[in-house]
């Protein structure tokens, strides 16, 4: 046997494996592209300015989705107002203050379980608890509260991972200079975890925008009118978000064109959010160097 280290050759098994993996990758990529192109080809046509800026009105003949755009914005805003402080606060508590390993494990198990529950169950619970028991009726507020419970696990877990990723040496450095625990959290921990927290927020917005089943039960299934009255009256009225409206047009009313237009809009929002996450990640990484 020669002692030389030359004589490189490809094994047939390897070539086959690379081929199969490549094929699968191509299939996933092709499906995604086909899906996006299909939705856009059917839906972009319908996305006119009038469609985005009017309410549906059979008398003057407009068929716009402005009410559900506004409802969606309200629900996003309210959900984040509730979920971000609670979620980030919870993550800080679990990571920094909770002493009992058992308690931490229980909380982690609970949040993991919550994130795996089908959204319709949150809808049923939200309907019984927020709409009926707390008498908030079927409203945007009930919708936001229900979605708060839905997105909390994502925010808590993502924020927790981000907090964990802050090097111990930074904490020690701050403590060594006399920073109290809370000062250290405020000045070192949270700023350094902000990238992860923002990612969690953006992912949550994606979830909120895409949610339909639960909201149908707690926030309402139609968006015929623009919300009226003061802010508090507006959030206590019922209304459907874009995803719910999509369901209604495409399924209940059989108006597929409107459905595709809404689908295209949702897709644009989701793609935009994902790009935002990428950009934020890049900026945070650059900041650290």
């Amino acid at each position, binding site marked *: 046997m020669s002692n030389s280290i030359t004589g490189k050759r490809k094994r047939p098994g390897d070539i086959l494996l690379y081929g199969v993996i490549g094929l699968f990758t191509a299939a996933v990529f092709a499906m995604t592209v086909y899906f996006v192109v299909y939705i856009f080809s059917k839906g972009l046509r319908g996305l006119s300015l009038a469609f985005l800026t009017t309410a549906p009105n059979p008398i003057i003949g407009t068929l716009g989705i402005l009410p559900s755009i506004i409802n969606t914005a309200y629900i996003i805003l309210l959900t984040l107002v509730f979920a971000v402080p609670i979620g980030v606060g919870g993550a800080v508590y679990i990571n920094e203050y909770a002493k009992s390993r058992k308690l931490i494990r229980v909380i982690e198990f609970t949040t993991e379980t919550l994130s795996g529950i089908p959204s319709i169950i949150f809808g049923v619970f939200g309907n019984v608890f927020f709409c009926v028991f707390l008498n908030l009726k079927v409203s945007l507020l009930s919708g936001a509260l229900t979605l708060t419970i839905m997105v909390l696990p994502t925010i808590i877990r993502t924020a927790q991972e981000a907090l964990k990723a802050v090097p111990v040496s930074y904490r020690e450095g701050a403590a*060594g*200079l*006399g920073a109290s625990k809370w000062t250290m959290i405020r000045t070192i921990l949270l700023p350094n975890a902000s990238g992860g927290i923002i990612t969690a927020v953006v992912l949550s917005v994606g979830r909120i925008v895409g949610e339909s089943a639960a909201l149908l039960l707690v926030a309402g299934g139609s968006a015929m009118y623009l919300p009226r009255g003061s802010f508090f009256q507006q959030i206590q009225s019922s209304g459907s978000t874009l995803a719910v409206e999509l369901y209604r047009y495409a399924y209940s009313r059989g108006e597929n064109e409107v459905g595709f237009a809404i689908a295209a809009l949702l897709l644009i929002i989701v793609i935009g959010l994902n790009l935002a996450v990428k950009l934020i990640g890049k900026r945070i990484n650059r900041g650290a160097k």
Partner: protein
Amino acid sequence: MTKITTENLHLHYGENHALRGINMLIRPNKITALIGPSGCGKSTYLKTLNRMNDTVPGVAITGSVLLDGEDIYGSTVDVTKLRKKVGMVFQSPNPFPMSIYDNVAYGLKIHGIKKRLLMDEIVERSLRGAAIWDEVKDRLKTPALALSGGQQQRLCIARTLAVSPEVILMDEPTSALDPISTMKIEELMSELAKQYTVVIVTHNMQQAARISDYTAFFLLGEMIEYDETQQIFASPKDPRTENYITGRFG
């Protein structure tokens, strides 16, 4: 004259009896080196001097540590004020991921100094004090993490100086650095000892011999011998000290 008096200090990590009755007088404006093999308790002892062990789960401390006559483990002690007075430099340079300026200003901000002019002045004085001013004066707003390891460590020293400590604890401050950076930090330490009381943990015996005025030898949680550095290295009294410094173990 003593700056820090340690009396019968015991420290337990759960079952592990890590410090076994340490008695020690640390003199002001001197460099005191703590030497000994890994796990001997020298770092643990250093950290008891500004209560950095407090947050370690399962830690129990008895005995007393007096700083200028005040027991730092007393119930009315404000740890924030203690750590302002007893600063610490860590083994690996750990600047915060912010600008050079903000790193030095961090301690000032958390202790309530907000006036810009005063802050500028202290930042400059601290960076000069840590012998890094000339290297960074033109790029104070650039990220601290872009500096070399040795520069980062001197920046961390500057950060500690900014809050006007009286004692500076250094936990193997050069073990992550190259020889030239190490030399710079060593020169800096002699300079610092004019104003501050310096306590340094080192596993490098030549370093202890070169820079320190006093040396304490730790072994298995006990302080075996403590004397003037020259004395310790020239004629150690305890055979265990002699064995260690002549390289027979450790």
